[in-house]
């Protein structure tokens, strides 16, 4: 069942975030800022750019390597998320037939180039976001968001959501399995659906009530306190400045072409 394997993967991301490395130890603010800058730089290239985008792959790959988070779960997520972007991009070769590239006897239209461009950008942007969460984890990420002036209510909401995701969805999948064992259908009829999801809703409301009581008993007075020992030191400054200047260089000069022409000159 797709849903259950999804939760398994969520657990894998959690495991990755619990590892320890220089990248994990960085202040989450530094990683959030660099990730956002990376996304803007990647998306600011024109839609017919291919080679100039390749040097940007250094960013997710170096971070994955330095943090030693497992590669396979990240790659699997990348593949799963691909269909929508590629589906929308798949119209490009149909509509844009202007020849752009001659390679041997082949003529490649602009549409295929921009399709490939969407593919590369997809890999870059998704892997950057996955690396961010895999090396930071939800709690540190939320702490960083709060210190970047994200409203506290939203930060608390995200932490609560994450905390109860496993509990409520575990309850939901047990109810669905019970229904399937009795009725045998993979999708429920509308009436059964209404009853089952409504029941899940009522159970969730009851749980929220108990959670609130427990929080009041522990002295909750309206806001969550964060416990994080991070500070924005010279490591963070070096991390941010280093990557930002790499992005700037890769945005202005086509590093791949420079390397390629150098290699061809050397090769004769």
């Amino acid at each position, binding site marked *: 069942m797709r849903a259950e394997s999804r939760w398994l993967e969520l657990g894998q991301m959690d495991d990755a975030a619990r590892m320890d*490395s220089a990248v994990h130890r960085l202040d989450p603010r530094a990683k959030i800022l660099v*990730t956002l800058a990376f*996304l*803007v730089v990647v*998306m600011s290239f*024109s839609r*017919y750019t*291919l080679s100039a985008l*390749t040097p940007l792959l*250094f960013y997710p*790959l*170096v971070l994955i*390597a330095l943090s030693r988070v497992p590669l396979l779960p990240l790659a699997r997520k990348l593949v*799963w998320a691909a269909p929508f*972007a590629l589906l929308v*991009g798949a119209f*490009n070769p149909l509509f*844009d037939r202007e*020849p752009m590239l001659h390679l041997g006897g082949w003529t490649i239209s602009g*549409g295929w180039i921009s399709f490939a461009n*969407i593919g590369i*950008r*997809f890999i870059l*942007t*998704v892997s950057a*976001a996955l690396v*961010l969460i895999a090396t930071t984890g*939800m709690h540190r990420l939320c702490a960083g968001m709060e210190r970047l002036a994200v409203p506290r*209510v*939203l930060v608390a*909401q*995200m932490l*609560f*959501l994450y*905390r*109860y*995701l496993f509990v*409520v*969805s575990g309850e*939901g999948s047990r109810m669905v399995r019970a229904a399937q064992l009795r009725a045998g*259908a*993979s*999708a429920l*009829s509308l009436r059964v*659906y*209404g009853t089952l*999801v409504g*029941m899940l*809703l009522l159970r969730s409301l009851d749980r*929220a*009530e108990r959670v*609130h009581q427990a929080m009041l008993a522990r002295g909750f007075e*309206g806001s969550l306190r964060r416990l994080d020992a991070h500070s924005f030191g010279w490591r963070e400054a070096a991390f941010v400045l280093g990557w930002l200047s790499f992005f700037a260089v890769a945005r202005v000069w*086509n590093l*791949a*072409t420079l*390397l*390629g022409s150098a*290699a*061809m000159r050397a090769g004769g």
Partner: protein
Amino acid sequence: MHMADALVSPAVGGTLWAASAALTFYSARAVRRQAREALIPLMGVMGAFVFAAQMINVAIPGTGSSGHLGGGLMLAILLGPQAAFLVMASILAVQALFFADGGLLALGCNIFNLGFFGAFVAYPLVYRPVAGDGASAKRCSLAALLASIVALQLGALGVVIETVASGITELRFSTFALLMQPIHLAVGVIEGLATAAVIAFVRRARPEVLLVVPWPVSRGSNRLLFGGLLAATLLVGGVLSWFASSHPDGLEWSIFKLTGGEELALPDDSLHQQLASLQERSAVLPDYSFQSAEAEAEADEAQAWPAVSAGTTVSGMVGGALTLCLACAIGFILRWQGSSRRAAG
């Protein structure tokens, strides 16, 4: 319906981020002002509920396929629009981060498309008037169905406008809209029926749950605020994307148009010339069609336009491949070093 980063230009993404951020700040303030302490754990658990409900499929009568709850309207009915908007924002953020459903740059777009239209348009302007005081079960179901269709249609239109304004796909507005709107009409009907079924059950089992939602405070001013916000967003988005998105180097592009390209006189200055030649050498894989045309015109006046110089293209491809290999190699070396250091330590 989640938009991916790869389809959003920075101008469109930034505009929608700003709009969603403004709505988030407004909603956070409104929720804080409501001062319902119990609301915070309630919102969290409801977010988890929507996440779980999205994985439970309902059969579509008469067809072999199935659909699921979107959740935005359901949250608005149970929690009120501001809290519902925050919960949707948190759900979309978690989906973007953990499941790569939609991206971080596109997060603003997704929050706007899936959160704003459901919580701040469909709920107050469709669900509330149609459902009335909530005494009639039939009217509540009808309201859920209509509001869900409206929310999905607006959300799909949002996706179409944002995608077309980003200019990354070749899809025309009309083509994409004709593709998206009918599909999301069907999705809206299914979601509406699913929402109505759940609401109907809750009404029967525990009606008091549906009564605790406070009405939106001072609705007139809210409507004005959001009308203004929507108009401002569309204006800014339209203007920004006009200048920036379909040609990310919009400035360069308009300069080219204005000056007629190669006539642009460079100051007779060696630094400028060096930079220009560097730029010429580095611009290899044709960025825009006119850039390659320009390069060709300079290189060989007589040659016809589409003949893109193969030599430079090949060096771009060789360079790209080399860069990829290099990136992978560095990745593996760093990893190997790390693990051997760990093993040694």
